[in-house]
């Protein structure tokens, strides 16, 4: 089954064309990496998938359901979760509260105005388990703003995972991390459930080739190459973009 189908999506900002006729199909359980230099349109494409910006043309299907005009929160409740390239957390909340928020948001339980006053044991246990999995054991009572940058990047992923999404969008999860921290994030992504579809933006070729089932390379708002590791490595066009032409 197709998890995500993007058909002929374009996006213009005024006269600048950020995406031109992009089509992409990602199967269920697939791990797809988006590669490309800065300004290639990867994050814009992500924003159109997550609903933060609306495409100028084209349509987007999530598990066979047209989500092109859907609000971001509705998409989230359909099983789509994302991380942000620039860390976007709740600095004045505790780590535990952040996770509880994420669990509640995806549950579709709606507003609970007066009750319950305290969180159930089982919710807390689930949150602690998730924090363990993301290498954040023992940070639950801390305020998010007191976490190190590396820990905040891991919390980005933990928040996205808390809602048990069917499609996970990771926007440069390793950006700015030390090599050791990068290894930890790669291991974390590797260990995720295989039935979870993952689309991930990555700059680091090694990380990309290690995690990807298939890779799509973007340049100047278009997808210029698509395929498995060998195909991308052999592509002359990709080499030109990354190494320059003589």
């Amino acid at each position: 089954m197709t998890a995500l189908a993007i058909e002929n999506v374009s996006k213009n900002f005024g006269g600048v064309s950020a995406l031109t006729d992009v089509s992409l199909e990602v199967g269920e359980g697939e791990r797809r990496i988006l590669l490309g230099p800065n300004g290639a349109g990867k994050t814009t494409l992500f924003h159109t998938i997550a609903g933060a910006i609306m495409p100028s043309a084209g349509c987007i299907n999530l598990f066979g359901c047209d989500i092109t005009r859907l609000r971001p929160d509705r998409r989230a409740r359909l099983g789509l979760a994302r991380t942000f390239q620039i860390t976007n957390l709740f600095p004045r909340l505790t780590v535990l509260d952040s996770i509880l928020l994420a669990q509640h948001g995806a549950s579709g339980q709606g507003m609970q105005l007066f009750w319950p006053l305290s969180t159930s044991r089982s919710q807390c246990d689930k949150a602690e388990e998730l924090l363990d999995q993301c290498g954040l054991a023992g940070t639950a009572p801390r305020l998010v703003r007191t976490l190190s940058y590396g820990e905040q990047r891991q919390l980005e992923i933990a928040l996205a995972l808390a809602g048990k999404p069917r499609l996970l969008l990771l926007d440069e999860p390793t950006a700015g991390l030390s090599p050791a921290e990068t290894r930890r994030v790669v291991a974390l992504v590797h260990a995720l459930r295989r039935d979870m579809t993952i689309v991930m933006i990555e700059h680091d070729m090694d990380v990309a080739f290690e995690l990807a089932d298939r890779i799509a390379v973007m340049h100047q708002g278009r997808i210029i190459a698509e395929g498995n590791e060998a195909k991308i490595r052999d592509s002359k066009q990709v080499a030109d973009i990354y190494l320059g032409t003589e």
Partner: protein
Amino acid sequence: MKLRIWPAACLFAVVALSIALPEFLRAYYLALTTKMLIFALFAMSLDLLLGYTGLASLGHAAYFGVAAYTIALLVVRAGVSSAAAFPAALCAATVTGALFAPLALRARGSYFLMITFALAQVVWSIAFGWRSLTEGDDGLPGVVRPDFGWSLDNTTSFYYFVLVVVSAAALLLVAVVRSPFGRALRGIRDSESRMRALGYDVWRYQYVAFVLAAAFAGIAGALYAYFNRFVGPEYLYVVQSAEALIMVILGGAGTLIGPAIGAGLIVFLEDFISSMTEHWVLILGIIYVAVTLFAPRGLIGIFIEFRQHRTKP
């Protein structure tokens, strides 16, 4: 265990003190304490927007004043019983909030502030200009206090009445901010875009917070109409809205106890300083500047930092 005993002991002391207060306060100061309680509720209701949801409203007096005017108009003009006017006042404030919220929530930050300010000024100008109904800036005297079989006309019984109503409202507010809804509001305050990505309908949460804040401000406004036995357009004026903002910021936004303390302090200082000089608003401005410069997290922030210093050597 030590940490759990202290709040309980403090709470017990506050409750005992509030009940015993009429025994050793002169009537004038008991009335001043009653006013502090009313404004504590007003400030806490604004904090639901400012401190928890991250929306700075400069028009919160609208809901306070609409409730007060509803009481006065029903009692003085329509001859409705004072007690029956109370639910009507609560409804009027809530409905005003429900109508204004969609307009105000189209904007954020200082634009939200300006829209809430403009909306409140509209209500103020109606109260000021529609003389045949509201007597304009003369206001409406002759509001009687409700009578539940025992009279609220003496200072002590009215103090207890306000104490009960404000405590009940404050407990409800505590329940709201501690519920999953309250946690979501704090999440929205910190990052709207992240909350959307997590599946929250941010607008709906903000709307409900806005209407709740209006309703609680309405309770305070109704009590204040009873308290003064009078209603005037200054209840709706921007100075009233700004004073509430300063109460919240002085006490510490994002905690309910902070704004309550801030309100008590401002009401006390206003009374104390007004007896010496006419320039109370000038002093208020200086207090505001001093707090934002030297204690940006308010009085409660100073207390929290002090405690963190002691526990972390």
